[in-house]
């Protein structure tokens, strides 16, 4: 353990280089209901105040969307970038957006594919990117761009076409799917490159996602991954590295069979680390991949955080502190902490990690947050 570090960024980068840390870096993620519960508990007014109290070491640069209006329809459904639509489905304790209109479902031939709604990376205002990145850097944060929904070909295209169809498309090399995949790649590649270029070297991490695993194992074979995904991700990773940033991929489920190849093509941070099977446990992953990749997440939102005691949570944090004494893990939940998870478990996680602000100074309550602009397509999932 090192003496108190001067900034979150210093802590994060030192941990990534495995040169030690004053306390383990953390990155929070929670559903809106969970975040509101945390804010209500502490009397906080916005998410920035919450992140400060929890000790989140990361902040994001997000250029505003300026493209064609993403409409809301009379039935309450909301339009996404590719013309798909979502509605919030209510369940006890919260709600989740689910796709309710899939414009590309059932389209088998290219001549029937309407590409008029394909988004363009020019549809964002990049004018404040460098100023925003500089502000976050000066405030000591590790600066990130992107979201788990960037790239995200399997899930992202499934929301506009149907998961069953997409999974079969991957086997059939369906040209309609491949056209949509290429358009999605160009959009997110362009969006992130524009931000990186405008930020002028001030971005530390570029975040994207691909749920290559499910609860039981890999979603697809290594052969399918190599054929459809690896070339695109290599090109994307190379681009991110060319701007001096590290690559970060959100990958749900059991994905360890893909890690060797992902490391080879340039993945720096494996986000999520969902312990769905023994092989995807953080301890097993550390044994297998050693110091070749940085892990992020790993605290199980399906088990100890949701159903365990605060002692269970503390025990799991201690385990991770023991596994990564010099760095290599950015601690946090393995996904957004889910509605219904006990507050004491969430606080126990950050308290044991040493990041929770126990005595909140008055100035925290004066911190302004970013304006809530409603459903953010880039942060959808």
């Amino acid at each position: 353990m090192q003496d108190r570090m001067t900034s979150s960024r210093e802590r994060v980068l030192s941990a990534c280089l495995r040169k030690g840390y004053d306390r383990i870096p953390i990155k929070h993620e929670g559903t809106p209901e969970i975040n509101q519960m945390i804010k209500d508990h502490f009397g906080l007014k916005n998410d920035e105040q919450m992140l400060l109290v929890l000790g989140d070491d990361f902040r994001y640069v997000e250029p505003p969307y300026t493209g064609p209006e993403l409409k809301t329809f009379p039935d309450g459904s909301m339009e996404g970038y590719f013309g798909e639509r979502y509605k919030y489905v209510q369940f006890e304790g919260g709600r989740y957006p689910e796709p309710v209109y899939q414009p590309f479902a059932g389209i088998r031939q290219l001549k029937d594919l309407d590409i008029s709604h394909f988004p363009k990376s020019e549809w964002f205002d990049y004018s404040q990117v460098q100023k925003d990145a500089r502000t976050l850097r000066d405030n000591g944060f590790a600066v990130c761009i992107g979201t788990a929904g960037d790239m995200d070909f399997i899930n992202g295209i499934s929301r506009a076409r149907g998961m069953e169809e997409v999974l079969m498309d991957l086997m059939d090399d369906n040209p309609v799917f491949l056209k949509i995949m290429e358009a999605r790649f160009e959009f997110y590649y362009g969006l992130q490159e524009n931000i990186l270029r405008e930020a002028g070297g001030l971005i530390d991490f570029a975040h994207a996602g691909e749920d290559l695993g499910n609860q039981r194992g890999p979603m697809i074979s290594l052969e399918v991954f190599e054929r459809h995904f690896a070339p695109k991700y290599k090109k994307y990773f190379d681009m991110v590295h060319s701007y001096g940033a590290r690559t970060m991929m959100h990958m749900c489920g059991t994905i360890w069979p893909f890690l060797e190849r992902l490391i080879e093509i340039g993945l720096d941070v494996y986000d999520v680390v969902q312990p769905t099977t023994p092989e995807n446990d953080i301890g097993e992953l550390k044994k297998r991949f050693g110091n070749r990749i940085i892990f992020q997440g790993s605290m199980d939102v399906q088990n100890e955080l949701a159903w365990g005691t605060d002692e269970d949570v503390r025990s799991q944090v201690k385990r991770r502190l023991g596994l990564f004494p010099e760095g290599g893990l950015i601690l946090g939940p393995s996904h957004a902490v889910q509605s219904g998870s006990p507050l004491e478990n969430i606080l126990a996680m950050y308290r044991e990690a040493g990041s929770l602000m126990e005595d909140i100074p008055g100035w925290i309550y004066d911190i302004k947050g970013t304006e809530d602009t409603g459903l953010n397509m880039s942060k959808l999932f």
Partner: protein
Amino acid sequence: MAILDDIYKATTEGNYKDMEELVKAAVDSGEHPNDIVNKALSPAMIEVGDKFGTGELYMPDMLLSAKAMQTAMGVLKPLLKGDEALVEKGTVVIGTVKGDLHDIGKNLVITMAEGQGFHVVDLGIDVDYQKFVDAVKEHKPQIVAFSGLLTTTLANIPEHIKALEDAGVRSEIKLAVGGAPVTRDFADRYGIEIYADDASGAAKEFLKVIS
């Protein structure tokens, strides 16, 4: 029997494109539809399900094989009339629970169960408590199966069970549950008789229950 071998192979390889032609050729050559199901389609799906269970095959492979089987059944079902109908082992009512819109797993269970000779009544997604009750009263199934993908919507399953109890039909059926966040402990906690890790396992458990 070569044509049955070809149908078996097309199923295991997910070759839905050639399946219609193969099945028609089998029927034209005198193969009985029941034999096409029992000697080719069903055992092929069992092999696919077993390989999915061991991680040798993946979800896309299962889906393609299921599509191949559905293509075959699309040809065979109209050919079976009256007392020549596929011998049904029982009836399963299945649906994704209230508040949950996901159905891939459910649809795979349907394919595997139909492949094993069950008549399956698919209630769809986000199924209300009363809809399950009404389906039990109408179809008189041996098994009612709940599918759920979200940890949060699992909380609705006890309510589904209570609705069946309140309607007085719980004792007439066996319950099954499956889905990504479901565990055997969860099933045991709520007195659910059938639990399986995956679609192939579910179909096997259904067979055990009605035998």
